[in-house]
């Protein structure tokens, strides 16, 4: 290490659990490089996650040191012993002798609430052992729409760092057009994002600013439309979609330009053992996280070491197609939403007896949240026409309680909901 991004004065970082909550991606990247091998644990707190979960994350990860450039986070100590600001720039620093610690990298699973769990990785589970500095990749420039604190973005960041390739990081403050222009100006050759990121990019007049050789899509279900649309905009580009999760790591890459995947892909990589059981994809792999840190979390792996991704698939005419989350989790543009959380808010409304939250397929963000609601006093036949104001009023109530992505975009007043034999609501996504 020839420099330091951390304004460390009297704090010894060695062997500590460090919670890294920087808004700026470049500074976060520098801090990650600096801390690996030094800290016992690095906790990656994404910039799109609000400050309210910091105390829980710090406690769960036993963090003694909080590194941040976010004023709203730096204003309180959140139960840590030391608060270290992130410097504006990398300052010269003397090379320190580094203990050969295998640092735990703690990633938050992709939820927007306290329901995100803390998954334990190490550099060896996050990075491919084949990633080496390679003069042949000198002309490669990576980029990603993802935050590098999320699994999808971190994977790209580590690939670029370990192979010695340049990388253009995004910024939450930057418009899609400005990012595309900047990526284009730096000659980005490889770029990744979710289908929602890509739909947004294709709506930008600056979509033509980049001319990548390789595009990777991940993080949400990929439909045929987005594959075709990317191919139409970038006809020379190799377009690959991938199945990966924070917990299970990268499963496979699909290269044939079609949605879904051929069953053979499950058995192609000897290092990644995959199977479909009870309708969901299970993965046993050195790329998987070891465990969750949360005390109330279920085991991350089963007795045979398989991670149940919870992603359901259906086999149709010799090809698997993704069919959503088994637990009904709704993926709105990469934000995962638990229906139960939204239902709990709906059910607090004085007029609501019960509710069922489900996904409605959407071509812009993959899915939207919609709700069926049973009222305590069902509207009379004559009043059927006038339920619209009640629907709007319930929506307004949700807006005051929930993040924008979670608010049902449509509320349907229904006479009743189906209860299954288990006594639970029957969930079936629209």
């Amino acid at each position, binding site marked *: 290490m020839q420099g330091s991004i951390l304004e460390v004065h009297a704090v010894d970082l060695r062997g500590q659990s460090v919670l890294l909550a920087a808004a700026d991606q470049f500074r976060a990247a520098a801090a990650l490089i600096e801390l690996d091998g030094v800290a016992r644990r690095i906790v990656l707190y994404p910039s799109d996650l609000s400050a309210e979960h910091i105390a829980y994350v710090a406690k769960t990860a036993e963090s003694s040191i909080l590194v941040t450039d976010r004023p709203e986070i730096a204003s309180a100590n959140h139960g840590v012993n030391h608060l270290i600001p992130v410097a504006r720039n990398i300052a010269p620093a003397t090379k320190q002798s580094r203990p050969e610690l295998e640092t735990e990298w703690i990633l938050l699973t992709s939820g927007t609430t306290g329901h995100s769990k803390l998954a334990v990785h190490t550099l060896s589970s996050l990075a491919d052992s084949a990633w080496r500095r390679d003069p042949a990749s000198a002309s490669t420039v990576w980029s990603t729409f993802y935050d590098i604190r999320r699994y999808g973005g971190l994977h790209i960041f580590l690939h670029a760092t370990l192979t010695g390739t340049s990388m253009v990081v995004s910024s939450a403050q930057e418009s899609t057009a400005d990012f595309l222009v900047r990526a284009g100006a730096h000659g980005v050759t490889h770029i990744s994002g979710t289908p929602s990121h890509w739909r*947004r990019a294709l*709506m930008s007049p600056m979509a033509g600013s980049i001319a990548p050789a390789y595009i990777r899509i991940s993080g949400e279900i990929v439909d045929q439309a987005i594959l075709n649309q990317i191919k139409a905009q970038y006809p020379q580009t190799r377009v690959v979609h991938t199945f990966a999760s924070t917990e299970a790591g990268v499963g496979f890459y699909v290269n044939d330009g079609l949605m879904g995947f051929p069953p053979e892909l499950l058995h192609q990589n000897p290092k990644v053992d995959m199977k479909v059981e009870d309708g969901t994809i299970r993965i046993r792999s050195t790329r998987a996280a070891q465990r969750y840190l949360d005390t109330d979390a279920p085991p991350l792996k089963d007795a045979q070491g398989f991670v149940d991704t919870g992603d359901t698939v259906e086999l149709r005419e010799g090809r698997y197609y993704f069919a959503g989350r088994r637990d009904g989790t709704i993926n709105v543009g990469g934000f995962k939403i638990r229906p139960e959380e939204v239902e709990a808010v709906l059910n607090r409304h004085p007029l609501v007896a019960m509710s069922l939250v489900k996904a409605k397929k959407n071509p812009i963000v993959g899915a939207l949240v919609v709700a069926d609601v049973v009222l305590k006093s069902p509207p009379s036949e004559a009043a059927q026409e006038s339920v619209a104001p009640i629907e709007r009023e319930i929506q307004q109530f949700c807006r005051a309680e929930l993040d924008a992505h979670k608010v049902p975009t449509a509320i349907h007043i229904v006479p009743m909901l189906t209860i299954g034999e288990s006594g639970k609501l029957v969930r079936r996504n629209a």
Partner: protein
Amino acid sequence: MDVKSEIVAQFTQVAQEQNKRLAPLTDSLALLDSGLDSLCFAIVVARLETSLGTDPFSEDEDVRFPVTFGDFIRFYEHAAK
């Protein structure tokens, strides 16, 4: 139903609901400069599917995304024919 006035109404309504400042809706306005984010567009498209009975984004897998507000209106007018 006039397609353009329905689209203008939905842009206005969704911007208001989501507390977004909507730019003046001229034909040459780039959609991403309209003040609406992806979630807003998603809601607009879902509501237009209900009110106009069509979702041109989903009807054709080879569709090119509209870039300006004018493109967006033509996109729906074309689909409504």
